[in-house]
Each structure stands twice: as structure tokens, then as C-alpha cells.
């Protein structure tokens, strides 16, 4: 490193970001293709014949089953089915669900906002708890506070979501009656807001129906808390670990040696740096939650995509499961991309080239 080194050029940052986004999206295509083919084959290998399932009646004969099979195209060779499926997907057709009788795309579009709303709220809730807890634990390592935080996190991870969900229902609905009936996103008799974004909280807020907003939020709070508890541990532990590392770093020592105020050191120097790894973890946690919240959706009768896919899987209904997996894979790619971009904005060292 010679003393004469010039600073790197700082222009054209957004152009570079755009190029990188494009590259990343392109490089995701093979992975998505692989996911498609794999799910397709997996569904064919799994036991259960959808034709039998759907033709099943009191007196179904082989002829009816064969007819259904022909209707569904299941009598064609495997590669032909795959090609047809891929061709359909390129035209945005994910097939029809045998259980709901609707196009899978319609079903997913209808249910995705419910899942996203739940997951976002849970992640926000988890972050708003995990960050302060992690910071406090890092500032006082080895003290009572640290141990209490560790205990809470362990508890959150140890208790399965269906248990904690039922516990929350038992306490807040049955015993205290604070929470509303834990079935779905809104009380069945309540008025639904006009469909604008599909996110109830946003839609209610847009039409300024604050009573409806409160009702929707009340329905949301228990399932969101259940999920938040589950992901509290990775977020809080990560915050604590990276905060500890940063507090021990050379530049925090520099800030101390120059007499900066305590809060400035913790917030501007330590926390901002410590949040970088937490950002990465948050992306992973979000993607995991979206797929893994099937139990929560089931417990709270939440009309989300995960419970939809589970029902379809149990019914050997191929198209919804394949559609769901493709959707999850796409969201995973998008979330990772988003996190990468955010990281590039937050950390000037991350190369944007």
C-alpha cells in the first residue's frame, strides 16, 4: 500500500447497482429452473394418484379413473408432461387446483398477501424485541440481564410454534379474553375493506377505517407474536454477538480515546456496524418464516399460501404445490437480492461493481 494510493472512483454507483441487480436476476434463472424440475419430479415420485383421489366416489370404476387421468394429462410420458408444464409456466399459467377448482395463480395471488402480512408483522415485532435485547445483553455481558435475555431466547426456540400459539390462544383468548376469536384474518361478520393491496392493515388505513384496522390488527397480533417468539433467538443472539465484536473493535477504542459521548459511540459507531450481519440474518429469517409458518397458519386458521400448499399436498394436488414451491423460490431470490442491495447501501465497502 503506497502512500500515494488514490481513493477509488465514487461515481456511477447506481448504474453499477442496476447492472448487478440484472446479473443477479439472470443468474437466478438456472436455480429456479432446477427447483421447477425437481419439484415436478418429486411430486410424481411421491405415492398417491391424483386421478384416483379426484375420481373417487362411492362406485368409481377403472374407466372413470382413466378418464380423469386423461383429462389431467397424466397418461402422457413424463418428459412430455414436464415440457407442457414448463411451456405453461412461461405463459404465466400455473395450472388449476383440483381442490379449489380455481387457477393456482388466482389462489396464490389471493392468499399471498395474508402470508406476507403475517410474516412482515412477525419480523418487525421480532426485530423490535431482538435488537434492544441483544444490545442490552452485549453492553452488560455476563450479568443478570445477559442471562435473562439468553433464557428468553432459549425458551423461544425450544417451544414449537404450535405449542406457543396454542398457549397464547389459551391465555389471551380463553383466560383473559383480550384477543379476538383466533380464526382467520377478520371476524367473519366484520366488513372487509376494498381490495387494494390485499394487506388488510394497509387497505383499512387507506380507506381510513380505523375500527376495521384495529380489528385486523387484533387478529394479527397473536399469530405474529407466535412467529416472532420463534425467530427471536437467532436475531437477538446475532445482535449480541456482532455488537460484542464491534464494541471490542479498534475503531470503538479510537472513538473512546477521543472522548466521544457514550451514546454516540454505542449508536453511531457500534450499532450501525453491528447491524450489518443482523441485516443478512434478517433476510434468511424472513425467507424461512414465509415457508415455515404453515403451523401458525394452521393453528390460527390463517388463509395463507403455506396452509394452502399443505392442503394441496395432502390431496395429491400437483399444481398448487408446484406453484407454491416456485413462488417461494422466487421470493427467496428476491429477498436475498434486496438484502444484498441494502447491504451495499449500508456498507460502503461492499463492492457494487
Amino acid at each position, binding site marked *: *500500500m*503506497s*502512500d*500515494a*494510493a*488514490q*481513493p*477509488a472512483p*465514487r461515481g456511477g454507483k447506481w448504474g453499477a447497482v442496476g447492472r448487478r441487480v440484472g446479473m443477479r436476476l439472470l443468474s437466478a434463472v438456472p436455480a429456479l429452473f432446477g427447483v421447477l424440475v425437481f419439484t415436478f419430479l418429486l411430486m410424481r415420485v411421491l405415492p398417491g394418484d391424483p386421478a384416483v383421489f379426484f375420481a373417487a366416489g362411492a362406485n368409481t370404476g377403472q374407466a372413470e379413473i382413466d378418464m380423469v387421468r386423461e383429462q389431467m394429462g397424466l397418461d402422457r410420458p413424463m418428459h412430455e408432461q414436464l415440457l407442457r408444464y414448463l411451456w405453461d409456466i412461461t405463459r404465466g399459467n400455473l395450472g388449476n387446483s383440483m381442490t379449489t377448482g380455481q387457477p393456482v395463480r388466482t389462489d396464490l395471488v389471493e392468499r399471498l398477501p395474508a402470508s406476507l402480512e403475517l410474516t412482515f408483522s412477525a419480523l418487525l415485532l421480532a426485530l423490535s424485541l431482538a435488537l434492544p435485547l441483544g444490545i442490552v445483553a452485549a453492553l452488560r455481558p455476563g450479568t443478570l440481564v445477559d442471562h435473562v435475555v439468553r433464557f428468553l431466547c432459549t425458551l423461544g426456540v425450544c417451544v414449537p410454534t404450535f405449542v406457543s400459539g396454542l398457549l397464547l390462544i389459551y391465555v389471551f383468548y380463553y383466560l383473559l379474553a383480550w384477543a379476538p376469536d383466533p380464526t382467520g384474518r377478520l371476524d367473519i361478520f366484520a366488513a372487509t375493506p376494498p381490495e387494494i393491496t390485499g394487506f388488510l392493515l394497509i387497505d383499512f388505513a387507506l380507506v381510513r377505517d380505523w375500527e376495521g384496522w384495529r380489528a385486523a390488527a387484533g387478529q394479527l397480533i397473536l399469530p405474529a407474536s407466535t412467529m416472532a417468539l420463534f425467530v427471536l433467538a437467532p436475531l437477538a443472539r446475532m445482535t449480541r454477538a456482532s455488537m460484542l465484536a464491534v464494541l*471490542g*473493535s*479498534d*475503531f470503538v*477504542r*479510537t*472513538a*473512546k*480515546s*477521543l*472522548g*466521544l*459521548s*457514550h451514546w*454516540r459511540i454505542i449508536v*453511531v*459507531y457500534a450499532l*450501525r*456496524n453491528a447491524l*450489518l450481519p443482523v441485516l443478512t440474518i434478517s433476510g434468511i429469517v424472513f425467507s424461512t418464516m414465509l415457508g415455515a409458518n404453515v403451523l401458525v397458519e394452521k393453528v390460527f386458521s390463517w388463509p395463507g399460501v403455506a396452509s394452502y400448499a399443505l392442503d394441496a399436498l395432502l390431496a395429491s394436488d400437483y399444481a398448487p404445490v408446484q406453484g407454491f414451491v416456485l413462488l417461494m423460490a422466487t421470493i427467496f431470490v428476491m429477498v436475498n437480492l434486496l438484502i444484498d442491495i441494502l447491504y451495499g447501501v*449500508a*456498507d*460502503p*465497502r461492499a463492492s457494487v461493481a
Partner: protein
Amino acid sequence: MTGPLLEVEDLHIRFSTRRGPVEAVRGISLRLAPGETLGVVGESGSGKSVTAYAVTHLLDRAGSITQGRIRFRGRDITRAGRHELRELRGSAMSMIFQNPRGALNPIRTVGRQIADVLRAHNAITAREARERALDLLRAVLIRDPKGNLDAYPHELSGGMCQRVMIAMAIACEPALMIADEPTTGLDVTTQKTVMDLLARITAERGMAMILITHDLGLAAQYCRRVAVMERGLVVEEGAAARLFQAPDHPYTRRLIAASPTRTSTVADLVEGDAPPPPRRAPRAPGTPLLLEVQGLFKQYARTRAVDDVSFTLEPGESLGLVGESGSGKSTISRLICRLIDATAGEIIFDGQSIAATPARHFHKAPQRRDIQIVFQDPTDSLNPRFSAFDSIAHPLRRLDRLPSEAALRARVEECAERCGLPRELLDRFPHQLSGGQKARVGIARAIATRPRLLVLDEPTAALDVSVQAVILKLLDDLRREDGLGYLFVSHDLNVVRMMCERTIVLRQGRIVEQGPSAALFAAPQAAYTRELLAAIPHFDPEAMREPA
């Protein structure tokens, strides 16, 4: 003010470790007048940095002052509270550190970091702070101060980062500056510019400075008074000129003897006898050179690390490669070890081309056992899960088909003994060995397969001078006894001069000058070589009398 600026009285510092308390500082006393410069020198573990951290209250949780007193301007600050410290730090005393890039917040622009310091001690607006930050960057001679105000630390070189650090440290005009190894890890020419700047700025502003360093030459050149520390005690203190010319304490004498100067020999460093002349006979006509490098190029993404380098090495000869970081010396050593592939060029070892074999297949080539390498960092280059025995045996198991486990053990023990590693240490793991012992393991591993060419990549850069002296002597003896060829890579010109018969000076991947070491160092031809030589801090008595 007439009284001393800083007074340290009978200071004791204890660290609580897993193996019980450790007394890092065992009763030292120092005094510093306003505007005075004091050098604190010592090897690792001497407690010199710990003392500085105690003064500024930056010791980590494990360390505590158990006894003694620290007074600043007559005020006792031994047990100063957080509030009192906030007022002192930055505005009355400040510190600059080793590894300047790590000492700056990586995700905040340098302008804002300087402004943070200014606003911590002055009631000024963000705009005023920015103006003054710009003035400070001008004061520390940053190139393009306006543009670099919004630069992040990773966009600046190490030397520039240290200038920014100095700007932050002087921002609120403190009376005392503590510089903890401020130029360790910087190139020798950068070290000179940074130290000159530091000396000038502190002198202009009447600041007192404590320079903590392992480099005696640096202390001699930039400090009026020097204190020598050994294992938590000040063993000797006095005016720099007197101390280095007529040291009283045996430790000071040993330290001075072990430091390479522009005239010392390897034997001088360890106060040994002059070595026997090398066994090397002139090469018989018709036998090949040990190594011949022709037109070597190595291109990385945008930079050309090695740019048309050619040289030769006779069997048993030692050749030094010197240069600053970015000169390509380490890249050349890795190319010749065939750890990486050259972009173009020819490497001929013992009459056979070895450049054609890709690096990832070279471990199967017959020449692999003939070319071995000693790495820079003795700790990182040893597998932490391997005992010393396994580390030395590793290349033997891979490359030599020894008839039996007993033969292997005999060979490992022989290598260890030749490298001065006691047999009982062979079962230890790297973390149980000292730096010097780890260096010996690394050397024993390199000579285990009885190579003919040893590539030494900064083998002593991470070691204390007294350990470096012993290791250099060991390497010199090994070469003379075995007729090994050495390719010795170093940034330390004095070390290369002592160890090598011929020297090549590199700059930005190109050869600037080459020739016999004695002649090259006595009368350098290239301007760059002269600049390098002039930048080395020294404490030779005759040189110190010269007007600065």
C-alpha cells in the same frame, strides 16, 4: 506551566486471565514535561502498550490498576470517572494506534469522523465542523483534502489512514499525544513521511508525545528521551543519544546488539563468532543454474503485480528480494514456489522448466520436494490442530516415501534439532509455543524434505528483534551447512543485506536495481534504492551526530 505534564508513579497493572492473574506492569514510574518527547521501547509482553492504555483508561475489562498513581497536570486521574475521562480524552490527551485502517470506523466518511471529535468537545455546527475537518486534513498533508473529506477509510491507503487518525488526534489541540506503534505495518518510506509529519505537528503545537515502539531506530530518531521496558519494568531511561551509545543495562545492550543496522552482520546480532565461509564452490561448467527466471509476468484483474522480471540463482546462493508493499516480491516468491500460476514467463529449476505445470498439479511434480517455503506469519502458517511433530512430518508423509514410522520420527527429530527445537516441544500444539518456537517449526518443516531451494517470505517480520536475531543466525547456518539456495523476501533492507549475497530491488512489479549486496547497499545506483535506504530509522552513533 512549570510542573510535569504527566507523572506515572509506581504503576502496577494486573490482568485476570483464565490461568490466574498476570502482572503486566510491575511498578513503573515515568515523567513527561510539556512539549517533551519520550520513547518507550521494548519487545512484546514488556508492558509498554498496557502502560499507555492505563494512562488513557482504555484497558479492557480484564486489566486493572492495582497500585500506583497517574497524575495529569498535577491532577490525579488514576480513578477518573466516565465524565472526567470524556473531558480529558481527545481534548487534553489523545492516542493514535497501530493498524490505522482498523482504527477508523469503516462505514463513516473520514470527514464525519473528524467532525465527530470536534463536536464532542466544542459547541459548533455541523458546517463549522466540516470546515475545520477540511483544515485538519490540509494540516496533515492529505492529497486532495476536499475530495477525501467524503472518502471512506477503505478508499485510502494505510499511510493516509494514519494521517486521518493524526488529524483526529490533534483536532482538539490536546497537550499530550500517545502514539502506540503508529507505523508498524507501514512501508519504510511511508513510515518516514508519517513520523516526520507527527514530529513536526507535535513540535509546532507544543504537544508532548509518547512514542511506543519496538523499533529502537525509530525511538532514537524521533525522541529526546527513551525508556526501555522489559517484562513490566523500566530497566533503563535516559537521553536517546546517551542511551544508545553507552547503554548501562544488559537488556538494553542485548536489544541494541540484536537490532540490525546498516553495518551489522548476522554474527554481530547474536554476539557469536564469525561463521565459516560458505562451502559453495564455483559452479562447474555445464551444470545448470539452480533457478532461472525469464520474463515473468503476473496479471491480476486490473494490476500487473509482476512485470517482466528475470533473474538467476546459483546453487547454494542467497538472493534477496526487497521492496515495499505492492512491489510484487511476495507474488514472485509464490510464483517460484508454484503456489500460483504466472501469466507469462519461464521458470527453470535445475535445467527443467517448471512453469508449464499448473499450480494445482505441482504437488505431484518431482520438484515439489526440492522447492520449499517458509511463510511470514509463524502462527497462521501452522495448522492449529497439528502438533509440532505432525507439522514437520506433514511434507515428509506427502512427498517422501520413508520406509517406516521410526524413520519418519528420526527424520523429524533430526530436523527439529537442527532448528534448535527441543525434542520435548514436538508434542505441543502451536498455541502452546512461543513465536520464536513456531518460527523454528516452520523452518524445520521447510527443510524436512531436504530441498535445494528455500523460499523465505518475510520469515522474521512478525518476530521481536532478539528472536529475529536468533532465527536469522539459524537460517544463515543452515544455508552454509547444507548449501541451500535461498530466495529471501523482505521489506527490511538491513536483514536482506546481512542474509543475501545478491539483492534485487523491486518497485511496482519491476526490477529497479540488482547487484551484489555489499556494493548495492554501499553505493546504490537507482534513486529509489537511495530513497529506501534513507528512510530506514537508525541509531548508529556516527549517523546520529549528523545534522538531521
